[in-house]
């Protein structure tokens, strides 16, 4: 057995996959990195020279944390470790796996030039850790077993695992479930998964979107109608309730249902019967109701836009599907999943993103969630010829996002990168993913002003304008080779991470913006349309807010997106009332 082996009394050869940990002279429990292979150091974003001689526990990184725990166990207990598989994220955020074996040696003699040996004794006890990169094989096995997928839902993050767990628990019950979550998070997939897990799985799953039809049509669609019930009702029609009998009815966007239909739905749920439009007989139906919304039903109940009794009848269980920005760990899994699906559809398997492109995607807030991710991946997939999709493939999309969703990018992270990493510019428009620092600088300049940006040189030549608005950018280009990035920074003042849009924060933003909705949206770090949606949901009147923040004299008209570009030349003017 492994533990019966004799201790290894030998000099450590410089194996390329071997990590050597030695204790310090003064604190023998603290393990220093004596030797580390360059490819392992790269996982924590360092070179061996940078971390050799440092305590392994003090080097930031998921893999070093795991290796420190392995080192401590082996050093203290003396029992070797074999085939221990560690899964972790590297410094670039990529999912990786390493198989580790470790053992203690009693008389290790450090190399004379070692930084760690300068602090240690001539010979000492040491831990040898052999590391093998198993990222590819683990990924392939996971793929083969479909791990990370649950009824079409993809994720391995804690919030998603909780969703899977709730589906498992709530699925077999017959109770109603409210599924909440932003648009594009996969609420219908959750509903389908609940149906698949229920005893009704062999019966119909019928979905209906409450926003898609007018009120009159919706009632007819939901409950059916008799022939001649209204003009054009040439024959009797089975409603969705009847079609879902013994199965599941999924009501999507239930927050948009009219109060009259809400009352009728409540009656149906309580009595278990329906009455067709124009009909005279009640019909018994056995349907499990699942409902989804991206609104806060509680707030809608509070402002009497949703019936409290219906809310309590429906919300026996609740599942919240997290937005993509709250589960960044799932991004690579989702990218891999969708690239595989898209690759199968277009007959180009094994297309992948470069780490740089992955990092770009991880910097985005994904307001459209998984649906938006899937669409952008399909777009760049079609537009790219090669097997590897680099960061430059996303340039046009980045420009569009920059313009359309001011709060879309993870500002804090970009700011951090901007301050931490020097801006090194790559060759303009090379289109190659060579791992240089040029793309770094492009990320830093994505739609944000701030220190340092105005010094940036153009990474690529002036691009063809995707929108009429872009034409106006040239008009503001300062003389002497201004860059598109710099002009962006003039047009879009530094955005903020979207604040929680409460009534109070919105009022405050309007007050700060002098009643200007566009400016208030910018201050809140959201698009104007998002702000209007929240105003509606919170029952706030735009007129009231504008009057609160409006200047007492010389009020300026609110600039619209279609207004003269020259209105945008100095955003600070608009910020001041």
């Amino acid at each position, binding site marked *: *057995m492994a*533990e019966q082996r004799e201790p290894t009394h030998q000099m450590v050869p410089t194996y390329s996959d071997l990590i050597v940990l030695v204790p310090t002279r003064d604190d023998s429990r603290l393990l220093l990195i004596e030797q580390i292979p360059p490819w392992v150091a790269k996982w924590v974003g360092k070179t061996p020279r940078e971390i050799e001689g440092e305590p392994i526990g003090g080097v930031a990184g998921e893999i070093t944390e795991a290796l420190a*725990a392995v080192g401590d166990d082996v050093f203290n*207990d003396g029992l070797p*470790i074999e085939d*221990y*598989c560690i899964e972790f994220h590297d410094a670039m955020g990529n999912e990786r796996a390493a198989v580790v*074996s470790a053992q203690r040696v009693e008389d290790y003699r450090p190399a004379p030039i070692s930084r760690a040996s300068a602090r240690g004794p001539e010979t000492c006890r040491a831990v040898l850790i052999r590391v093998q990169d198993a990222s590819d094989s683990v990924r392939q096995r996971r793929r083969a077993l479909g*791990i990370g997928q649950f009824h079409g839902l993809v994720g391995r993050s*804690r919030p998603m695992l909780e969703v899977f767990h709730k589906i498992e628990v709530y699925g077999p019950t017959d109770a109603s479930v409210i599924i909440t979550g932003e648009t594009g998070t996969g609420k219908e997939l959750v509903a389908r998964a609940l149906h698949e897990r229920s005893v009704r799985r062999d019966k119909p799953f019928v979905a209906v979107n409450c926003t898609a039809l007018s009120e009159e049509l919706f009632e007819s669609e939901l409950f059916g109608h008799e022939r001649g019930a209204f003009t054009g009702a040439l024959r009797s029609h089975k409603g969705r309730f009847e079609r879902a009998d013994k199965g599941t009815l999924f009501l999507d966007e239930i927050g948009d249902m009219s109060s009259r239909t809400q009352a009728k739905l409540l009656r149906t749920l309580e009595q278990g019967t329906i009455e067709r439009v124009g009909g005279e007989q009640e019909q018994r139906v056995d349907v499990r109701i699942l409902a989804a919304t991206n609104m806060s039903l509680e707030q809608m109940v509070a402002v009497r836009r949703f019936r409290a009794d219906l809310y309590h009848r429906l919300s026996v269980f609740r599942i919240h599907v997290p937005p993509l920005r709250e589960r960044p760990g799932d991004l690579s899994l989702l990218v891999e999943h969708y690239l595989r699906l898209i690759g199968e559809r277009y007959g180009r398997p094994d297309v992948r993103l470069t780490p740089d492109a992955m990092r770009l995607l991880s910097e985005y807030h994904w307001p459209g969630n998984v649906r938006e991710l899937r669409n952008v991946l399909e777009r760049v997939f079609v537009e790219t010829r090669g097997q590897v999709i680099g960061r430059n493939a996303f340039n046009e999309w980045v420009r569009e996002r920059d313009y359309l969703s001011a709060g879309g990018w993870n500002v804090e992270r970009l700011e951090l990168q901007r301050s931490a990493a020097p801006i090194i510019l790559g060759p303009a428009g090379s289109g190659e993913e060579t791992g240089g620092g040029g793309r770094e600088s492009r990320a830093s300049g994505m739609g944000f002003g701030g220190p340092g940006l105005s010094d940036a040189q153009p990474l690529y030549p002036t691009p063809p304008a995707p929108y009429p608005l872009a034409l106006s950018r040239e008009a503001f280009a300062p003389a002497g080779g201004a860059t598109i990035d710099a002009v962006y920074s003039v047009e879009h003042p530094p955005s903020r991470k979207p604040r929680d849009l409460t009534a109070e924060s919105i009022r405050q933003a309007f007050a700060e913006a002098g009643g200007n909705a566009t400016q208030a949206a910018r201050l809140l770090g959201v698009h104007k349309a998002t702000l209007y949606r929240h105003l509606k949901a919170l029952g706030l009147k735009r007129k009231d807010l504008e009057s609160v923040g409006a200047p007492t004299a010389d009020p300026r008209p609110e600039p619209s997106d279609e207004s003269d570009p020259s209105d945008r030349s100095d955003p600070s003017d608009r910020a001041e009332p």
Partner: protein
Amino acid sequence: MSDEIERLIHSHRGMVVVQLTEPILDAAQEMDWVATEIREWRSDVQVVRAEFSLHRDWARHYRVHGSPCTLVFREGELRLRVKGRFGRAHLRAALERAGLLDP
């Protein structure tokens, strides 16, 4: 989900052995029999088998970052942690060293 393991660790009077495995690992298949071995040596053992990827955060709290790994608790406290693939003799030695086979 990890709460259930934690509850068991604190409620069971004897020894609780938590075996963290991963279905994708060959090593995990070989570890199946280990629980039976422990029962041969001690009768008051409660064995829990859990998928590592579902209990990452919980495992990290006990300085476990991978699988397979076996954690032995007694009276709610972690008494032994054996990482990687191991055999009967290795496990017995580890249990003895930790004083977990004493009556």
